[in-house]
């Protein structure tokens, strides 16, 4: 029986199940296949902090959302068109997010009394009519998986574990995707477990053929490849992009890369990823704690390495004293903060932009450093290179902000040619003639003199330094000179970063000023609002300390400025304080990114009936 193929422009799919159901894996496989099929895409994994919450419970639901398209997209999609729900809890948790008329594929085998009770359902939603406005496709996934593997010599438990591949196979069929990418992946993954490999491949195929042969499905969909600019592409998550970005910075600068780090969600993948690249000479030091991570990086920086440390909020708090040491010793260092919901342990696996204050102001004393923020998973790559460049050029710590949304989300990145990336010039001082540790150049930057260099033996440290000479100094005037020098040096970075660009007409009434990972949702939200007639401009900050030179000019061109942030108004507070400007705040603190529609609605609301005309 031949089935109808319907061409659609974009689709948002969400896989949801128990933490142990392999939903992240299923989502990642679908993503890799989709990337190779040439679609533009954006992903959003959403999982609990517990590794294995009680099976079947609402708190244990893990989800992976993927938005793919034949045109350019910026976000993982507001509302899924398709939900694959492996159990009642997954259905319950995700139902509210779906589009009207969304397709729901459910594993009917899990809809029995115990699981319904765990999901706090009083009656079976598959039978009580509560899902009538959705296109529900009930499939006995577990049973079909077990039947497929009837003759395979594996335990019942191991067989059941394969059921996510049945769902994946079925989705491959529905969206006209080849199964070979996943088959290949399985071959590598289970090279040493031939029975498991065979079982998973059988189930994957069975899922695919189920779509083809069963009468349930009348239509399959096709999302044509996106018209991306020519070039070589790679699907990349934010954390992976940071790792590759710093390796590239190491290649560019010739300085060996040293990471001092301690595992923490959602930043651990940076450590894990970098530990693979010993063939690039990368030194990854998994320290005994967050403090040791940054302190070892400071030691490595003193020794002439491109030194970085990676962490998330709680770790950033712990690193702050050492960050101050890097400020006063004026050593290059990049601190990567992959933000998560706070305070304290907060929401470890959820996203938030609430570390901005801490990044800019978190140290005791006058301790300025450079703060910058990546705007998309792929942008993490370029921003890491930029952070390294600035840290080395200005002999300063730099905090690079990412967040959980960027860290785990992924998108295709057009890989830049090596020569197109900025040069990172490293100059170690070797000449003892006229050497003073704190003698500054025209940018107020002191020399990088590393151990092993004859004649340049010197001591640096946390006590205030005598201007130029670097000895300990408690002189009142000297302290003021040094404080101002350190401040001015950071300010000088302004001359080295691009001016803020405005996307929109100069005469728009409203400027939306954004920073960090909200870029995609805000860009699409603005596009949407414009389609409804809104006169709105957009500017996105990548540098938060110092700000781009023209920021004040840009702000003054607009009657209204709105700042959307995933915090209660940290950038807004800074902008208000620095530029005495009224700001319309738009804040969300739910551990979730902005939705495109939310942004568009807010813009229209702020503009009132006039749409800014």
């Amino acid at each position, binding site marked *: 029986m031949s089935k109808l193929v319907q061409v659609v422009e974009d689709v948002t799919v969400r896989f949801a199940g128990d933490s142990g159901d392999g939903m992240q894996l299923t989502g990642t496989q679908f993503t890799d296949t989709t990337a190779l099929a040439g679609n533009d895409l954006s992903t959003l994994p959403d999982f609990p902090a517990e590794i294995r919450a009680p099976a079947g419970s609402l708190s244990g639901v893990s989800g992976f959302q993927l938005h793919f398209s034949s045109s350019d997209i910026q976000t993982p999609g507001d509302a899924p068109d398709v939900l694959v729900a492996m159990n009642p809890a997954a259905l319950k948790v995700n139902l509210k997010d779906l589009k009207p008329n969304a397709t729901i594929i459910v594993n009917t085998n899990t809809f029995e009394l115990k699981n319904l009770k765990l999901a706090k359902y009083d009656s079976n939603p598959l039978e009580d009519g509560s899902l009538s406005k959705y296109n529900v496709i009930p499939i006995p996934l577990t049973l079909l998986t077990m039947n497929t593997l009837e003759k395979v010599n594996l335990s019942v438990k191991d067989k059941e574990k394969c059921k996510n591949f049945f769902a994946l196979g079925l989705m491959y069929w529905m969206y006209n995707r080849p199964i070979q990418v996943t088959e290949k992946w399985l071959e590598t993954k289970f090279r040493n477990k031939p029975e498991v490999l065979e079982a998973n491949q059988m189930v994957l195929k069975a899922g695919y053929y189920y779509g083809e042969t069963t009468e349930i499905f009348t239509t399959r969909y096709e999302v044509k490849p996106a018209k991306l600019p020519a070039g070589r*592409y790679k699907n990349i998550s934010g954390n992976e992009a940071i790792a590759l970005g710093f390796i590239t910075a190491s290649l560019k600068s010739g300085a060996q890369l040293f990471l001092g780090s301690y595992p923490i969600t959602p930043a651990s993948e940076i450590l894990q990823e970098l530990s693979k690249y010993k063939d690039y000479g990368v030194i990854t030091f998994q320290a005994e704690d967050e403090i040791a991570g940054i302190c070892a990086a400071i030691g490595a920086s003193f020794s002439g390495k491109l030194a970085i440390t990676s962490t998330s909020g709680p770790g950033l708090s712990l690193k702050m004293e050492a960050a*101050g040491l890097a400020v006063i010793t004026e050593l290059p260092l990049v601190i990567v903060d992959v933000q998560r919901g706070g305070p304290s342990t907060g929401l470890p696996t959820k996203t938030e932009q609430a570390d901005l204050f801490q990044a800019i102001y978190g140290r005791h004393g006058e301790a300025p450093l450079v703060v910058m923020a990546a705007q998309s998973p792929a942008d993490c790559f370029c921003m890491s290179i930029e952070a390294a460049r600035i840290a080395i050029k200005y002999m300063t710590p730099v905090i690079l902000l990412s967040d959980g949304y960027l860290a785990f989300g992924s998108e295709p990145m057009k890989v830049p040619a090596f020569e197109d990336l900025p040069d990172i010039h490293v100059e170690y001082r070797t000449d003892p003639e006229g050497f003073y540790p704190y003698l500054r150049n025209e940018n107020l930057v002191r020399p990088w003199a590393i151990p092993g260099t004859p004649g340049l033996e010197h001591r*640096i440290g946390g006590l205030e330094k005598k201007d130029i000479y670097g000895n300990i100094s408690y002189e009142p005037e000297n302290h003021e000179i040094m404080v101002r020098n350190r401040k001015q040096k950071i300010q000088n970075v302004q001359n080295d970063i691009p001016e803020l660009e405005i996307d929109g007409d100069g005469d728009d009434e409203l400027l939306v000023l954004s920073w960090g990972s909200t870029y995609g949702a805000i860009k699409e939200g603005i596009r949407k609002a414009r389609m409804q007639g809104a006169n709105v401009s957009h500017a996105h900050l990548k540098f938060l300390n110092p700000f781009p030179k023209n920021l004040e000019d840009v702000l003054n061109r607009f009657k209204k400025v709105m700042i959307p942030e995933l915090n209660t108004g940290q950038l807004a507070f800074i902008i208000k304080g620095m530029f005495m400007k009224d700001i319309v705040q738009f804040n969300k603190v739910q551990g979730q990114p902005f939705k495109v529609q939310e942004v568009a609605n807010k813009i229209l609301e702020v503009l009132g009936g006039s749409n800014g005309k």
Partner: protein
Amino acid sequence: MENNIIETSQIKYTAKDFSSGIDVKWCPGCGDYSILAQVQRTSPDFGKKKEDIVWISGIGCSSRFPYYMNTYGIHGIHGRAAAVATGVKLANPDLQVWVATGDGDSLSIGGNHFIHACRRNIDIKILLFNNRIYGLTKGQYSPTSEKGKITKSSPYGTVDFPFNAIKVATGSGATFVARSLDRDPKHLQEMIMRASRHKGLAFIEIYQNCPIFNDGAFSVLTEKETRADNVLYLEHGKPMVFGANQDKGIKLDGLNPVVIDLNDGKHSIDDCWVHDENDPNPTRVFLMARFTDIENFPTPVGVFRRYDKPTYDSDYHEQIKNVISKKGTGTYEKLMFGKGSWEVK
């Protein structure tokens, strides 16, 4: 396995070459002066060029040390010297990295870094100046202060038990563990020299007098009249004998050390415990370390333990070398255009 000594015959350093020339600002009579002097006296014989030596410290009186040494140095933050030093050494294993630290710095706020540096056996040398008091903050009790000690923050006496630094270092895996005294310059020099030659984490606890806040803490070990009866000089392969007339010894009765009188007609030197610093089993080191906790036992000084174990820094760089020899040196093309990338035309 001892560190290779490079040829420095062309460079004849003197102690003065290792002085940074700035005014030393410890209190008059502070034991730190002696430690600095012994380090500067021995430094020319480390077999290292001046520019290849790095001194790292934390916070506290002892931690001003790097400023006085004419080498590279970082005066870091409280407790973190071992972590900073680990970064320096791992980044450049050719450097000889020393840590100057105190009982508060390394056994209290920085305890974690100290034990993990020992655990990894990273090739750094740690001199712990133990004065059993917080000096720089003016006289609070420290983690090595004896129980019941009356200090500014314990007017009724402390109720906590002190750390035994030798036990902590040994238990954490340090491969060279020694103790010396600020007022025994010769012995201290010998310990420093031996630490400098050891490949792996070398730890020396130096009993150091704080004349202002804990004066005389170790006088029984340093004063002429009492020293001989209270100090046991550990020497590899030698029986444990002490006393003004070398008339007392330590006998090991099973796992119980006992002090014996060599003149009582029942015991002879042959009964004495013979010190073996290379014993791979740390049990006896703990027994020796306990002497300071038992009444009438002498305080051992010298090398408690020295053994060979791969160091963190050399194993780490060996791993990098191996991966590069297998995979070749990484390139940007390999990094970005490999598996999982695709071409859009």
